């Protein structure tokens, strides 16, 4: 009985992961295709990568995207962490229902609505569209993701540690930086990474809120994809996938090491 179930489980996991990964693997393989035809294999070549680095338009867009991502992820992490603290630590304040609503709603809000509404706001207050407007828009939706990630860590946090620090005379700010932040840091880092990749990926919201001179990489890729599939785009996508995969793996390895270290320390403290 048990054996058949586990076979069923293994088959379903394998098929599920094949479905999730096969398209990405194929895309990466065909970025090394000699032929200009994306779907016919013509031998191994890295020529599309060199073509990519000579494409000034794409390179400019990549630079804009990178700067927007860095800035928006950093602001979103600060605001999202504050929002998570507000939601877990203060169970009663005026307008809490509205606040938690505004934190969770952007997670599922269709991007076309978020994009359009932010654009109309920027037009209404006479803010010139460009680098800053895309950044502000990305902060707004990314901070909600950060808040959810950090909140899940704060919920399991042992508050007596904070109370002990305050009893010993630490100010709330000092307590936060000396006690709370080190514990929730893995979640804050994951939140930053998530915010950064969300910003890196976003097409719809950027298209609405961007202006002349602030074309992001997804906007550029999208305008080329509409004209057809090209190996150059495959190469650009492969580089992006490589960067993100490397980042995610690094963070998870670092987090795991910290976790192991922390458990070892706690163990040592209990014995000593």
């Amino acid at each position: 009985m048990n054996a058949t179930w586990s076979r069923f489980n293994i088959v379903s996991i394998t098929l599920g992961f094949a479905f999730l990964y096969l398209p990405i693997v194929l895309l990466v393989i065909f970025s090394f295709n000699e032929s200009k035809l994306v779907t016919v294999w013509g031998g191994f070549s890295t020529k599309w990568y060199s073509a990519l680095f000579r494409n000034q338009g794409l390179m400019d867009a990549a630079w804009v995207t990178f700067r927007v991502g860095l800035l928006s992820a950093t602001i979103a992490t600060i605001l999202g962490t504050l929002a998570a603290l507000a939601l877990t630590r203060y169970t009663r304040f005026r307008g809490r229902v509205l606040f938690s609503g505004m934190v969770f709603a952007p997670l599922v809000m269709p991007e076309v609505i978020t994009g359009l509404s932010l654009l109309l706001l920027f037009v209404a207050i006479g803010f010139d569209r460009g680098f800053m407007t895309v950044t502000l828009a990305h902060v707004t939706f990314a901070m909600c993701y950060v808040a959810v990630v950090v909140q899940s860590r704060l919920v399991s946090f042992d508050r007596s540690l904070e109370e002990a620090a305050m009893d010993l005379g630490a100010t709330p700010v000092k307590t936060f930086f000396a006690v709370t932040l080190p514990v929730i840091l893995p979640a804050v880092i994951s939140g930053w990474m998530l915010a950064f990749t969300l910003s890196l990926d976003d097409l719809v919201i950027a298209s609405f809120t961007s202006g002349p001179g602030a074309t992001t990489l997804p906007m550029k890729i999208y305008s080329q994809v509409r004209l057809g599939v090209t190996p150059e785009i495959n190469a650009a996508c492969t580089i992006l996938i490589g960067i993100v995969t490397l980042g995610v793996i690094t963070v998870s390895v670092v987090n795991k090491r910290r976790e192991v270290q922390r458990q070892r320390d706690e163990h040592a403290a209990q014995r000593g």
Partner: protein
Amino acid sequence: MQRAIAALTSRLVIVVPYLWLLAFFLVPFIIVFKISLSTTAIAMPPYEPVMTLSNGIGAFFAQFRDLHFDNYAWLGGDPLYMRAYLSSVVIAAISTFLALLIGFPVAYGMARAPATLRPTLLMLVILPFWTSFLIRVYAWIGILKPEGLLNQFLLFTGIIDTPLVILNTHTAIFIGIVYSYLPFMILPLYASLEKMDYSLIEAANDLGCPPISAFWKITFPLALPGVIAGCLLVFIPAVGEFVIPDLLGGSQTLMIGKTLWNEFFANRDWPVASAVAIILLLLLVVPIMFFQQAQARAQEQGK
């Protein structure tokens, strides 16, 4: 003094993100609603101003008489928009169901996997979510094209004689949505299934309950919070999806996200685009509130 500083910092923790979300999330919706009541103008911005405060309070209230509901009447009168809303909801619902059918066995398999393997499996589900949405949708164009990889494979193995037409059909949109949103379905399902006590199923089996009815009587009800959360996480964004119908669905596909995009970027009709957005929001307000309550409940349970 110290107490005052403590009170001030705790106030700031709430006030700063609160104000940000008010300014950049709530106020924009009010502006969208306002502009949806305006009329198109050949100017920049391309709409007639409504409800300004520039002429004083008395004039402000007088403006209520001049509000136009023409854009809504226009949307109601044109069957194209109604069909777009309807087909968006239908496409999103079918895709959500397919994602549940595919996601459930995967999540179940993960929950029953050896405990040492689970973090790796979880990581493997989350990883595609970190790769660009646009890239993942784009990857499917090369696979689904008439001369694409899927047809090449099927022709090569002799399963079919003539290439299948999949790209630019509803099937391609279903594949795209299921593929892109599958991690959102698997994660909440896995979270509920992992907590489940599997000795319950063994007990049911021992008492002679067949596996299928044990599934419907035990596993499914216990996984229900995950099923609801997963379905909402897929359904709500899928209704307003733009990239997938645009790249995989071809020109004749009607989905409201694409309609809104075209009203805005191609027709430059901002007031109608705003009205489309407001009705889409009204359509989604019930599922969104449902989702928020589920989130809040999960948060309370976590404590």
